[in-house]
């Protein structure tokens, strides 16, 4: 295929252009299929596949939280106090307030978390996630499940939902 950046010819199936080294666009078969608009209108939060949220007690430090985010490969943690959710800590919060400024081992998560985060419910339309993330600028939102537990959805889950071909 022809590279859209530098027009070099590449053999079919190449991932990277031989001419300029850029990633080649995924072939058409890997583009999301079907009616994406329909997927936006019809989906529910449950169809995003919310994953169990990872949580950390409010009196732990940002260093503990960062360790946990690395280990679990997540971008946000629920902050709990006596078993109840009191806030959310995102990687952005950890960086804004701490990186290069303070010792993460000395800052409690309660000092940089967002208290009382907006939440979604599993049976709400997926458009609510678009709306909340767009208006609030969030990349992660807690989802209240019917059994009382809390899961998390991310902006990446929205992309995966749209990208999944049916």
């Amino acid at each position, binding site marked *: 295929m022809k590279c*859209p*950046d*530098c*027009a070099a010819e590449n053999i079919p199936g190449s991932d990277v252009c031989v001419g*300029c*080294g*850029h*990633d080649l*666009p*995924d072939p058409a078969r*890997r*583009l*999301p299929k079907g009616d*994406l*608009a329909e997927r*936006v*209108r019809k989906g*529910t939060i449950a169809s995003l596949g919310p994953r169990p949220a990872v949580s950390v007690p409010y009196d732990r430090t940002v*260093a503990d939280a*960062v*360790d946990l*985010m*690395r280990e679990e490969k997540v*971008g946000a943690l629920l902050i709990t106090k006596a078993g109840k959710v009191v806030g959310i800590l995102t*990687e*952005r919060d*950890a*960086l*804004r307030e*701490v*990186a*290069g400024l303070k010792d*993460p081992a000395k800052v409690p998560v309660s000092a940089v978390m967002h208290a009382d985060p907006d939440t979604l419910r599993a*049976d*709400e*339309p997926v*458009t*609510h996630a*678009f*709306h909340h*993330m*767009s*208006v609030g*600028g969030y*990349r992660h939102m807690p989802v209240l499940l019917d059994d009382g537990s809390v899961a998390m959805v991310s*902006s*990446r889950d*929205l*992309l*995966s939902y*749209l*990208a999944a071909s049916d």
Partner: protein
Amino acid sequence: MPTVDPFSRPLTDLADDAFLVMEESTGYGAVLEALRTARAGSMILTKDGAVAGVFTERDILNKCLLEGTRPETPVRELMSPRPSTLPLTATVREAIALMDSKHVRNLPLVDGAGAPKGLLTVGRLIRFLAYAFPAEVVNLPPRPGQVAEEADGA
């Protein structure tokens, strides 16, 4: 209803042209400061004018925050090198596919020479889609099963 399928729109329509870009030899401290000042989540790094890498919040979280990274460390050593890119003329549909398959939240948009011309973040993409489906997003009842029992909803 929009007359043009939002997923077929070119990325020029929604990319951020006020993106941050620095030389890959810049020190970590200066990059961090620039990100914080602009309240931005990622920086495009260039070498000889072409995109060489992206340095994101995730890179800071994974490689710097607990390591006490020195401010003079060249960001070249910390960035994610050779990032996925798209031309500005690529479509929203292509961007969704690439961001999903490569697990990236920040996509530099480049010209034919690989020079950065824009940045597409996942947040911007989601905002674009929220605006592209305004009726669906805004006019939904707070509960899906909700039905107004009186004609005027009063």
